[in-house]
């Protein structure tokens, strides 16, 4: 088995000159693709340092597009990481500005008009947010984001019912904040079942039914996966849970306003929402908590009893109003945005999958796949090194979802992908502000640089010669 470090070195074209006796292509063969690292980056000679995204010194892969004159163009990367966060819509900012200028009352001040006017706006926002998922405004609890909503639901419900029940069910591909909340519950003595997923990332309803026990009080399954974009069968899960009188929570951070969700039709009892994934401000989100049949939970934050006692603390009206406006726009423009994103997504997929030895991760059934999240594996290349070579595009490898970790993605592993495949995948996020010109640029840039990186890869050379990589005995290091 080839060690991961060697793989990485090969893909980066760095120190590992010889691996198992295979000679790398000489540098001179590829100079037409590469330019010197020192003069790469930008024609304006301004070195843009974005976080720590600088390629290592002396690395030959910091190439620029050979086919055009860089000095005629800007230097800021194209943003294709909308699963991490979205830009704030100017229409949202316009709404928020009122609250940073004139409307500064505390919405909980009930003795004067400053309080009343902000309270009215807060309630308006609440109803816009409820409308998107066909909920009652009273069922919307404002929180600091989906992380808090997930914590509140996954810890809150089992703690409330701890006298009679001690088991919850979730999946292996949840967001870290769900998995970590579940782990905390395990430390407190609860039992957790982590459902596996198939190679498309979907759970099996039979597995779910088999996992349910008399002591199960909560099932938590995310709506849209943040790495591969698969949509779980919410309605069917909701039906199973309701028939067994188990509460159903879904993390809809990536789904809210982007796919159709109806909490009543789908029997959803708790649902997490994040404002900054729908072009709203960061630092706010909401948790939908059903009132009939009533969901009871132990609040994490207690105090003045705001938000039905489930989340105390003074609300932030600028954020609430911006979140509300973002939700209103999501609903109003849903069809328009969906059609646009779908069109760009098809174009991107067509362009990238025409590269040999690429693979789309996620579901092939359009009903179970959100088109704004395109996750593709480029075999014989390491995702991280491709990202390094793509400083002009802001992307994330499937693995880098949480922080700067270089671990292969646990989500892709759960689909049955091996280390190499999980390492070679990249997530492309398309939103309402992505343009067609950006997609064209990305397709051309990726095609060119995948080709370049593969030319440096001895693995690729061997594959081209028809050598089966599984038959090779790799010398250790």
């Amino acid at each position, binding site marked *: 088995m080839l060690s991961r470090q060697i793989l990485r070195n090969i893909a980066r074209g760095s120190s590992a000159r010889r691996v198992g006796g295979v000679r790398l292509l000489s540098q001179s063969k590829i100079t037409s693709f590469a330019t010197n690292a020192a003069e790469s980056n930008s024609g304006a000679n301004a070195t843009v340092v974005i976080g720590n995204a600088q390629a290592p010194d002396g690395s030959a892969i910091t190439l620029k597009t050979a086919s055009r004159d860089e000095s005629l163009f800007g230097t*800021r990367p194209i943003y294709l990481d909308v699963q991490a966060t979205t830009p704030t819509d*100017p229409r949202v900012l*316009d709404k928020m500005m009122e609250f940073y200028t004139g409307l500064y009352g505390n919405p909980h001040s009930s003795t004067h008009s400053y309080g009343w006017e902000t309270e009215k706006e807060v309630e308006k926002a609440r109803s816009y947010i409820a409308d998107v998922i066909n909920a009652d405004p009273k069922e919307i609890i404002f929180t600091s984001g989906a992380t808090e909503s997930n914590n509140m639901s996954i810890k809150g419900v089992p703690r409330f019912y701890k006298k009679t029940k001690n088991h919850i069910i979730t999946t292996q591909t949840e967001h870290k904040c769900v998995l970590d909340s579940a782990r905390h519950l395990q430390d407190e003595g609860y039992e957790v079942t982590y459902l596996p997923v198939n190679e498309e990332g979907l759970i099996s309803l039979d597995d779910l039914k088999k996992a349910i026990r008399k002591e199960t009080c909560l099932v938590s399954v995310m709506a849209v996966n943040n790495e591969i974009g698969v949509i779980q069968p919410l309605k069917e899960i909701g039906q199973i849970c309701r028939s067994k009188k188990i509460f159903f929570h879904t993390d809809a951070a990536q789904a809210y306003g982007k796919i159709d969700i109806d909490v009543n039709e789908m029997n959803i009892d708790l649902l997490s929402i994040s404002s900054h994934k729908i072009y709203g401000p960061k630092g706010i989100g909401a948790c939908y908590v059903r009132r009939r049949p009533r969901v009871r939970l132990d609040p994490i934050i207690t105090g003045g009893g705001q938000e039905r006692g489930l989340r105390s603390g003074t609300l932030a009206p600028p954020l609430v109003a911006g979140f509300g406006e973002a939700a209103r726009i999501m609903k109003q423009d849903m069809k328009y945005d969906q059609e646009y994103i779908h069109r760009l997504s098809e174009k991107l997929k067509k362009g990238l999958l025409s590269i040999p030895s690429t693979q789309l991760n996620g579901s092939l059934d359009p009903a179970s796949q959100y088109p704004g999240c395109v996750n593709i594996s480029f075999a014989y290349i390491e995702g991280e090194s491709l990202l390094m070579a793509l400083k002009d595009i802001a992307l994330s490898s499937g693995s880098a979802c949480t922080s700067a970790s270089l671990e292969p993605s646990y989500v892709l592993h759960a689909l049955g992908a091996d280390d190499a495949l999980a390492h070679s995948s990249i997530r492309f996020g398309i939103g309402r502000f992505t343009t067609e010109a950006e997609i064209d640029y990305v397709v051309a840039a990726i095609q060119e640089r995948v080709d370049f990186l593969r030319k440096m890869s001895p693995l690729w050379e061997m594959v081209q010669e028809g050598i089966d990589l599984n038959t090779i005995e790799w010398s250790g290091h």
Partner: protein
Amino acid sequence: MTTSKQILVLYKQLLEKAYKFDNYNFREFAKRKVTDSFKANKGLSDSEAITNFYNQGILDLAMLTRQTTISQMYTFEKLVVEPLKRQR
């Protein structure tokens, strides 16, 4: 009663404002949105619906005026897809 001349003037004003976003993505979005929404509502015949559409357009024009001003006050480097010499 909203006349077709008024609608046409509004369309031109909205599009003109859309071009004023310094931010590339907001500019392209606003242009697309203005054009598409006028195209989608081309067939409106009910005079009340036309007036509502017109009034919403006036509100949007005010919003675009404020937001393009803000976009011009806080500027960032151009994107790699943006030619450095402004078109137009």
